[in-house]
Structure formats: structure tokens, C-alpha cells
């Protein structure tokens, strides 16, 4: 039995990362290094107005005064910020008629990733903003969306064409001085998606951004801003992959969400950056700041994430529940294998009255990986009748991995009810035995149990993603019994 289990485990750890290919696309890059000139160069390349450059420089000057934080339960090798290319963009092709067109190789890349850039081929009802390295390649379904007044475009475009909106909301949730990586991102971010849903509009399709790192020696720093005006609704998806390389690449993104009165924003992520090989070589460092603010009454922000990739993940999607009766949600499945490390969780800051939040986190560790949940639930003095429920479960597959839980509960109001529970265990032999007895192989049984374990979170994903995520779970862990 044990031998068989070991075999299954090694099969799993040996499974290939299927998005690890490199596309040969002409890429325009700037020199390595980080200084004010580089930042000016990025800003100039993007044709940004003066205020944007000021914004970047301010962030950069602050970043220089900061130190890399070390509180997370992670082993991070020293990062040389001067050894990174901060801007890499696929070269723009111009056709015979003088129109801009997409490099066929680029299109092929996205086809291969399952993200077709032609609208007719798309899964019905998903609009995509495809980001390769530092720039947005194409945003689909823009016209359809524009009919309803929805703005969905790349960040650079938004800065040029909707400066008022961008100035009003950019860095209003994650200030440039917020933390080390947010400051770095604010200084050098090259693109990302911008989305504005006007009053009373229910976005008719899923919006999504697909991030792809392709060029070597680069970092990806994108910035996403979603603003949902009164009584609006939007569901937003995010996916990401990168080639297999021996060196580590840095990905430091910032996502900001603003939900005004009665608005609802649902943000789903399937994070599948290259996790490194089975000896822990290579992989993406995923240091991301994601935060939403429920600014209006009765607003709602929901984060759902499936984290399977990245060598190191450091990410805490948060909700600031400012408006009365607002609601924050966080659903997460984090899988680590081999030498991956993840320190992830959520922050719920209750400020308004009758605010509610819910955290459901499912960690699965295998191989020699370490998987931590770190979360904060903070109830401020004025948050009458605040309510939180947190549940953090960890599943250990193998005796060399680690699962950790670090919740912080800070309660400053007596009418608040805050609950936290966590469990850590492995898949029980009796559970496997039960399945075996009914004719399921051990491998199938484990797959079944893991899927059942993660179901509460997977159910929260939009249909298109749920199928994908389920497959991903199967690939990364199917059959691994400790």
C-alpha cells in the first residue's frame, strides 16, 4: 500500500507544467535596473501625462526609504532589484494598410493558452484583456460593453482617455506608501486593466484579464482598478501563466476595487504561475497586494482564489467594510507542492455598522512545501453588530510539508461576533478504505476527497473557471496520499 502511495505521489510531483513554453515574439525591452530615469522612460513610452509621472516618482522615492518586510513565514532569497527589466512589450506590427495588427505568434500563444483573441471564438459571455509581459495586447468585446457605458480597457489607455476617473480612484484603496511591493508597483507598473461600471448597470458578461509573462529577466508589475458605481454588478476573472525558466521572476501586482452604494464586485483568480521544478529551481515570486473597499451602503466584495502556481506566494486579498451593511467574502484554495511556499489569507476591516464578512480558506500542502494562512479580522469601535466567521482548514499530503495558521482577531466592539476555527489533518485511512471498498481506486478516492474538500470554494467560481480550476487541482494533486 505504502509503496503504491509513494509511486502515486511521485507521479504527481513529476507532472508537467503545461503552460511552460516560451513564445518567440519580437520584444522591445528597456535596460535592466531601477532608478528615476528608468521610471521616466517607462512613463514616456506609455505617453503618460505629467501627473502620472509625478505619481510614479513619489512612489519610487518612498520605496527607496522602505525595507523589504520579513514577517511572513517564507524563505525569500535576496532579490536584486537592479537586475530586473521593468518594461518588456511585444513589438507592435503594422499591416500593409497601415492598421495595427496582432502578431500571429502572439495570437497563437494565447490560443495555446486557451484564450482566443477573436471575439467569435470566445466562450460566450467573457470579455478578455490579454496582458503579455508589460503591456495589454488586446481587449475584446469593448464595443458591446461600451453600449451600456461600461469602460473596460487597459490601464495605459484609461490613463490617457479617462484621466478623471483614474485620478479619482487610483491608489485610493492601496496608497502608494502602503507597503514595500505596492510602492514598487506604483513606481513601475506598466499596464493592467481598468474597469468602470456605471450606475445601475449589471455587467452582461464576465470580464477577465489574462496575464502572461513571456520575456526572460523581466518582472511583471500590473495594476488593476475596478470601480463599481451605485447599484452595479460585475464579475471579474483573472488568470495567469508563465514559461518554465531556471531563474526566478518577480510579479508584484496591485489590484484595487471600489464598490459604491449597493454595488457588488466578484473577483476570481486562478493563479497558475510557473511554480518551479521539483527541486525548487525557478518559478515566479508572486507578491501581490489586493484590496477592495465597500465604500457605499449595502455593497459587497467577494474574493475567490485558486492558488496553485508560483514558487512563493505572498498575497492577502482584503476588504475594507466602510459602508453600513456591507459584506466581504474571501474564498481560497491554496495548493503547494514540491518546494513551493505560500503565505496567503485575507484581511477584513469592519468599520461600518452591521458589516459582515466570511473567510473560507482551504490549504493543501504536498511535497516539501509550506502553506500558511495568515489573516486579520479587525472590528473597529463604531462597527456595531459586526459579524465574522472564518474557517481555515489544512490538508497535509506527505510528511515533509508544513501547514500553518496565523489568524489575528482584534475586536473593539462588544456587539461584534467574531469566530475563527481551523483544523489540520491528513486524509483519513478510513476515508480511503471506505472508497476502496466501494470500488474506487486509491487515486480516484483521493481526487474525490480533495475535490469535496475544496468544493465550498470551487463552487464560488464562475462556471468557466470552476471547470478549469477543478482540472488544475486534479493535475497538481490527484492521487497524492501521504
Amino acid at each position, binding site marked *: 500500500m505504502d509503496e503504491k502511495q509513494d509511486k502515486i505521489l511521485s507521479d504527481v510531483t513529476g507532472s508537467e507544467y503545461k503552460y511552460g513554453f516560451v513564445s518567440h515574439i519580437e520584444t522591445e525591452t528597456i535596460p535592466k535596473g531601477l532608478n528615476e530615469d528608468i521610471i521616466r522612460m517607462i512613463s514616456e513610452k506609455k505617453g503618460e501625462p505629467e501627473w502620472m509621472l509625478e505619481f510614479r516618482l513619489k512612489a519610487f522615492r518612498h520605496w527607496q526609504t522602505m525595507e523589504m518586510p520579513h*514577517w511572513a*513565514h517564507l524563505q525569500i532569497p535576496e532579490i536584486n532589484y537592479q537586475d530586473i527589466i521593468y518594461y518588456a512589450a511585444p513589438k507592435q506590427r503594422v499591416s500593409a494598410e497601415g492598421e495595427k495588427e496582432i502578431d500571429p505568434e502572439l495570437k497563437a500563444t494565447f490560443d495555446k493558452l486557451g484564450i482566443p483573441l477573436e471575439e467569435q471564438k470566445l466562450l460566450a459571455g467573457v470579455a478578455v484583456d490579454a496582458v503579455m509581459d508589460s503591456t495589454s495586447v488586446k481587449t475584446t468585446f469593448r464595443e458591446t460593453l461600451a453600449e451600456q457605458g461600461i469602460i473596460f480597457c487597459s490601464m495605459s489607455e484609461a490613463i490617457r482617455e479617462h484621466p478623471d476617473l483614474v485620478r479619482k480612484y487610483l491608489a485610493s484603496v492601496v496608497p502608494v506608501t502602503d507597503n514595500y511591493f505596492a510602492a514598487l508597483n506604483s513606481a513601475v507598473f506598466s499596464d493592467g486593466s481598468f474597469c468602470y461600471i456605471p450606475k445601475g448597470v449589471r455587467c452582461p458578461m464576465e470580464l477577465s484579464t489574462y496575464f502572461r509573462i513571456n520575456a526572460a529577466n523581466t518582472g511583471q508589475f500590473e495594476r488593476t482598478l475596478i470601480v463599481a458605481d451605485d447599484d452595479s454588478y460585475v464579475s471579474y476573472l483573472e488568470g495567469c501563466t508563465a514559461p518554465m525558466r531556471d531563474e526566478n521572476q518577480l510579479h508584484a501586482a496591485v489590484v484595487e476595487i471600489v464598490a459604491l452604494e449597493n454595488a457588488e464586485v466578484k473577483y476570481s483568480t486562478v493563479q497558475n504561475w510557473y511554480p518551479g521544478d521539483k527541486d525548487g529551481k525557478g518559478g515566479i515570486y508572486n507578491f501581490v497586494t489586493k484590496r477592495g473597499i465597500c465604500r457605499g451602503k449595502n455593497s459587497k466584495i467577494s474574493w475567490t482564489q485558486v492558488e496553485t502556481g508560483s514558487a512563493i506566494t505572498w498575497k492577502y486579498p482584503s476588504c475594507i467594510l466602510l459602508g453600513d451593511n456591507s459584506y466581504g467574502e474571501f474564498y481560497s484554495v491554496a495548493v503547494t507542492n514540491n518546494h513551493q511556499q505560500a503565505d496567503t489569507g485575507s484581511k477584513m476591516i469592519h468599520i461600518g455598522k452591521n458589516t459582515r464578512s466570511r473567510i473560507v480558506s482551504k490549504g493543501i500542502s504536498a511535497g516539501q512545501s509550506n502553506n500558511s494562512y495568515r489573516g486579520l479580522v479587525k472590528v473597529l*469601535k463604531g462597527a456595531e453588530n459586526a459579524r465574522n466567521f472564518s474557517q481555515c482548514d*489544512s490538508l*497535509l*499530503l*506527505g*510528511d*515533509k*510539508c*508544513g*501547514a*500553518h*495558521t*496565523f*489568524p*489575528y*482577531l*482584534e*475586536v*473593539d*466592539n*462588544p*456587539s*461584534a*461576533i*467574531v*469566530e*475563527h*476555527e*481551523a*483544523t*489540520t*489533518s*491528513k486524509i483519513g485511512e478510513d476515508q480511503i478504505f471506505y472508497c476502496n471498498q466501494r470500488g474506487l481506486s486509491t487515486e480516484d478516492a483521493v481526487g474525490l476527497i480533495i475535490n469535496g474538500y475544496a468544493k465550498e470554494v470551487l463552487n464560488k467560481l464562475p462556471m468557466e473557471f470552476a471547470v478549469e480550476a477543478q482540472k488544475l487541482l486534479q493535475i497538481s494533486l490527484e492521487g497524492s496520499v*501521504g
Partner: protein
Amino acid sequence: MFSIGVNYLSMADKTSTLSVRDEFVNLYLNNLDLITEESSELMNHYREEAIQYFRLLGIPSVKNEKYKYSKIEPLFGYDYEKYFAPKKILFNIDDIFRCDIPELDTHLALVLNGFYLPNRANKITELPNGIIMGSLAEASRLYPNMFKGRYNTLAENTTDGLVAMNTAFAQDGVFIYVPRNVVEAKPIQIINLLMSDENQLVQYRNLIVVEDGAQAKVLVCDHTLSPKRFLSNVVTEIFVGRNASLEFVKMQNEHNDSAQITHTYVNQQRDSHLVTNTLTLHGGFIRNNLFVTLSGEGADAQLYGLYLTDRTQHTDNFTYIDHAVPNCTSNELYKGILDDQATGAFNGKILVRRDAQKTQAYQSNNSLLLTADARMNTKPQLEIYADDVKCSHGATVGQLNNEALFYMRARGIGEREAKLLLMFGFVHEVIKKISIDTLRERIDDMVNRRLHGELSRCHNCLMHC
């Protein structure tokens, strides 16, 4: 009523702008002779290294993750007298102090301001069954073999400045030794008395050894007998041998100007049992660090805690259970009620090391907030590196259940009484774990009166402060 011997020294000149850290290092250097003179060579052996660590670490600030919710630094902002020799007391301690639990029959050890109070001039008491209890300093001279490999082996001088400070300064405390296979049913009681007409800093040290197969119950009570400001920094090291069992009850009952920081380290051998009960009924500022290392298979640790705080009191319980080997179990339950502007914190960490398979660890912390100004921070943590384990933790912060209140009121119980009944039921879960019957009943009663707002603390104290 009593006078003080001349043997005291005031702190280094306040005129200088020295940091607390430098002040204490200077205090140490200036009084080295006095400190070492009253102490044994064995204890002095560790001082130099400890003061170096203290110089390095200083007083922990709130930026230290371990002390995130407790502001230690301001406690050192007051002027304290520090004594490097026991005060001569010219009164009978029995006249001034009577235990809160009169029916309780115990072996009594009294400590006054950090120095063991001799029982009819005997610094060491040896019971017929071989149990040794008495002054730590004296015992370290008489029984060096019992100290070697134990004293200062558990204390974390290298990571916590307060522990290092204690190691450098502590001169006395209580030593308890329970020999192999001795089963003592009668509890051993340590009473720490604080009495001074000056503000005072007290640093002392306890060592408790329960040998293989032995069983003992230790009850520690803290009392302040004068209304001055006290700051205690206490380190206790406990060794529980194979198959041995220890029940360790700590009752903290001090006045609101006092501050107490305790560091308790327990090492458990194979198949040993430990029950700790930390009952914080009263005290201005309390920080309890409790570290349990399960270093032999089959060891079992039960940690219970209760805190009832009101006014501006602060209680912070920090526990750390280290499952170092397989097949150990631990269970932890801390409950508390916070009233007025009281603040509380709980930090519970369970570490399951690699290969510590078949571990079972449970942890729970529940707090009730009664007023808008009360505040509770809780941080239960699991750090697990083995897969075949069952670990869980839970934490809740909330208020009394309205439905339960309604149920009682519908049956004719007044609102106040109903609330008190619910609160009592809430905390009784911890109290009922005490195995010493008279003590449990007495604590039930004290808690009951404490919840009714009657000051149970000074009931038996003639000072009525």
C-alpha cells in the same frame, strides 16, 4: 508596622538620559557584588552571558511580534526600588496575611518581594517523604546536582530580553523537588507577597522538579499587601519526569497598580501529565508566557486559563506548545470576560515538528466583551510540519447569547441575575478542571463574587487597600 532593613539601593541617577536598557545594564554592573554575594555560584555562573543578551535585546517593544498586544516599555517608565538582599521584617507574617482559602491544607512556601521567607529560620524544608522545598539560592548551594542540567536550561535568554534580565538579576525564589515515585496528595502552595512602602521591581526565579513517577500539585498565589506600584518579572522552570504528573495552578490576585510578567517553561518527559490552570482574577497589567515542550512520547499537556478583567486592566496570555516527538496530546482552553475599559490578548501557538506524527492538539479561546470600551485581541496559531496529525483551534469574541438571556427572563430570572448566571456558566468550564476540591469550590465562590462586583481580593487581607 514594619521597618525595612538598610540594604537597598536606588536606581542609577535619573538625571541622565539613559535608555531603560542602559539603565539596567549599569544597575547590574554597579551592584554586581551585591547580587552575587547573596546568591550561589551556580546561579552567578549564568549572569554575565544573560546581561549581554539583555544588552542586545532590551525590553521588548510592541514591534516585537510576540509582544504585539502588550506595551511593556511604559512599565519601566516608573521609578522602582530594587533590593539586592532580603528586607528584614519585624512582624509576624501571619498577622498580616491569611490565605484566601482557609480550609485548604497545604505545604506552604512564602516569598516576600522575591526572597524566600524562612520558616522558623529554616531556608529549606524537607518533608518525611523526601520532598524538598525552600529557598532557591540556598538549595542551589546545598543540592548542586539537582540544579545542574536544569537551572537556566529552558529559559529563553537568547530571544527574550525580559528573561535574560531575570537571569542576570534573580537572586532567589522557590525550589521544589519531588523525588522518584513519591505521590504527594497535599498541594504545595507558593505565596508571593508584595509589600513595600516604595514602588518596587521584583525579579525572582522558581525551579520545580517532579522526578519520574512522582505526582504533585503546586499552587501559586500572588498577593499585593501594600498599595504601591509593583512590577514582577518571574521565570519558572519546571521539569516533569517520565510517567510523572503535575498540576500547576496559578492564581493572580493583585491590585490595579501592579504589573506582572511571568515566564513559565515546562519540559515533559515520556508519558508525563501536566495540567496548568492560570486564573487571573485581578491585576493591573498581566502578561503570562507559558511554554510547554513535549519531549517524550505519550506526554499529555492540558492548559487552562481564565481571565476576569475590568477597569483598565490588561491581561495577555501567550502560550506555546512544542510537540517535539510523536504521539503526544495537548489541549488548551482559555476563557475570559472583559468589562469596562479592560483589554485582553491571547496568543496560542502549537508547533508540531517534523516527524511528530500522531499528534493531537486542540486549542480554544473564547472571550466575552461586556462594554463598548473593552477590547480583545486573539491570535491562535498552528505551525505544523507533520502530516498524520489532528490539530484544530478555534477562537470566538462576542457577547452573551440573547436567546439564552430571553429564556431565563421568560422564567422569571431578573436580567442582571440571568447575565451573571450565564457568565458564571461560561467561566465554570475552566474552573471545573481544578482537581483540588476545596480550591475549586473556593475559586467558584471567588469568581462568583468577582462577577457580582464584590472585591474578593482583599477579603482576607488586613490592609483593606
